[in-house]
């Protein structure tokens, strides 16, 4: 049940492949649901060249673990793997990976969706978009409304 914060690029499906080979017992879980969030090259008609993700690492790990604990209390979860990127990221890079293994499909979907939802609302990460010389901190969550201020 690893939670990993990582400053370097990661390939989410390669990591999942490795994780299944190394850490999962074949035939244990019938269902795996995975969410991968990546940096888009466009955000509300604002082109994005890069992004800096700042984090409060000790608290982020704890908050993500709390969210996962709450999910495993509510749903039957065999295992999970959470990765979150920080530092400088480029469009196309994976920002976050949430993978949940379960016996049952519906449990895996519900738990995965719960984890990414609460991770976004509770884990202390902040995104700053860059375009040319301009940068802006995103305010509030991307699936809520991003109100933002630009400063050169």
């Amino acid at each position: 049940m690893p939670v990993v914060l990582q400053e370097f690029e990661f390939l989410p499906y390669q990591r999942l492949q490795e994780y299944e080979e190394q850490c999962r017992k074949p035939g244990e879980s019938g269902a795996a649901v995975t969410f991968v969030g990546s940096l888009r090259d466009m955000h509300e008609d604002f082109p994005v060249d890069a992004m800096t993700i700042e984090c409060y690492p000790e608290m982020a790990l704890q908050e993500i673990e709390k969210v996962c604990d709450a999910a495993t209390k509510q749903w039957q979860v065999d295992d999970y793997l959470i990765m979150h990127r920080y530092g400088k990221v480029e469009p196309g890079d994976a920002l976050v990976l949430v993978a949940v293994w379960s016996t049952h499909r519906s449990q895996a979907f519900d738990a995965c969706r719960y984890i990414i939802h609460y991770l976004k609302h509770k884990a202390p990460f902040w995104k700053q978009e860059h375009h040319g010389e301009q940068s802006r901190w995103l305010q509030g969550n991307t699936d809520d409304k991003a109100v933002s201020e630009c400063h050169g």
Partner: protein
Amino acid sequence: MSVTVKYFASLREHVGQAEQQCQVPECGCSASEVWAQLNASLELPSNILVAVNQDYASLDTRINDGDEIAFFPPVTGG
């Protein structure tokens, strides 16, 4: 008492530093009182979030010797 105060993201830029080690005179003061003492010239932003020892807390949370207090804007991870 001695506390560590951290600032993140836009608030870090606003305050002009990421971390302060500092002495707070009275034990049992609140997080907002710590802010007022350190940032007398800066109004506390209305949407500010507070964590004490890496746990979400409120501006009224009482601070003890050795605590780590973090102030930051709403989170935008994932």
